[in-house]
């Protein structure tokens, strides 16, 4: 393909209509559009629009490099299709089929156009094949990126949901932690607790670790850092839910929790917090 413009460019222009018809037939035969997730009209519009932008990009910048700026409308278009397919629940290979189904119609038109010159046909077929592969790969990459984004967002939402900061009393906040304290989550927990202490002007924060199955050095380190930060803000911190087995393990690990107030359960922690805030709880005799 050393000499000038690829014949692929010419074929894309000349047979735009025919390519569309053949491509849609391929897609239909491959199963796209048959399950009601994408309607036939929608598919038709997408395919037509794609061929349009493809033709334009190929005419202005050739088909050798789809990373060129002239190709950005094509890439954007494919990104859009990928995003839509993610929400419609397609898999990555089903999504890539959208592009790969264009191969056969394109080859067919090329061979018709070039005829018996085997050498040229082989070269142009190779060029077309490379082009479609690149577009297909771009689609898969974009699909995966979108899916990762969706998963990350869901994860973040979950993180926030699972770390509520609860107001127990005027000036007393509690933070029930549940599950494994991996670093990402602990960071969020810590930030939201500190923020809530500021917002509510609380004097005592209770971190409850009843729902944390393992306290190892990493978890202990996170807890100690949080306690230090809370103190620097002028508030007090109690760690509750330190069950006997956890207490023993912490001691064996060699973690020094001295100076940190710990309680076996949340009720004891609340009683202490109330006492420190100057409340006395009494029971009315009947």
């Amino acid at each position: 393909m050393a000499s000038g413009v690829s014949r692929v460019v010419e074929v894309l222009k000349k047979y735009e209509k025919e390519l569309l018809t053949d491509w849609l037939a391929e897609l239909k035969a491959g199963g796209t559009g048959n399950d009601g997730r994408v309607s036939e009209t929608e598919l038709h519009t997408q395919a037509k629009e794609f061929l349009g932008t493809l033709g334009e990009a190929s005419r202005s910048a050739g088909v050798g490099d789809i990373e060129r700026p002239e190709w950005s409308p094509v890439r954007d278009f494919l990104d859009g299709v990928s995003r839509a397919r993610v929400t419609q629940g397609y898999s990555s290979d089903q999504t890539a089929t959208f592009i790969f189904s264009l191969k056969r119609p394109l080859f067919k038109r090329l061979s018709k156009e070039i005829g018996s010159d085997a050498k040229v046909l082989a070269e142009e077929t190779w060029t077309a094949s490379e082009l479609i592969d690149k577009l297909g790969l771009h689609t898969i990459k974009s699909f995966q990126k979108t899916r990762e984004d969706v998963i990350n967002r869901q994860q973040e939402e979950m993180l926030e949901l699972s770390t509520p900061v609860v107001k127990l009393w005027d000036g007393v906040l509690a933070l029930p932690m549940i599950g494994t304290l991996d670093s990402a989550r602990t960071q969020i927990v810590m930030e939201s607790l500190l923020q809530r202490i500021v917002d509510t002007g609380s004097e005592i924060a209770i971190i409850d670790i009843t729902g944390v199955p393992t306290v190892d050095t990493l978890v202990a380190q996170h807890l100690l850092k949080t306690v230090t930060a809370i103190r620097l803000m002028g508030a007090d911190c109690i760690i509750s839910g330190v069950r006997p087995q956890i207490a023993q393990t912490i001691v064996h690990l060699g973690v020094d929790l001295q100076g940190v107030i710990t309680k076996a359960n949340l009720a004891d922690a609340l009683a202490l917090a109330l006492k420190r805030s100057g409340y006395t709880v009494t029971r009315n005799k009947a």
Partner: protein
Amino acid sequence: MAVTKSEVIPIRTEHDIVVARQAVRRLSVEAAFGLVDQTKMVTAASELARNTFIYGGGGTLQCESLLEGARRGLRLTFTDQGPGIADLSLAMKDGWTSGSGMGLGLSGAKRLVNEFEIESVHGQGTRVTITRWK
């Protein structure tokens, strides 16, 4: 002493540390460990799995359920092909860390189990074996 059961868990990602802890918890229960012993073994495993992941660049955990006479036990072997530990006695010291940890993982894990063995060849990798008996 007989090995009654053996399984290998890859430690390649942060999430594998969680998987490793859960497996050790399950096997500790199977070995009829009490709650304190379970917690000790799981915590030791968590420390060593994290070292394998962070410093060893990933590796494996082999869990072996043991039987000696009527006594049941659990042996965990953490292996990696990472950089190894240049100075073992330093690494075993309370509070020594080359990173940003507390420097208590290795020494703490040793205190949490009945048997502790560590081999490390600088430039070739590290293997830590711990055993706890009921």
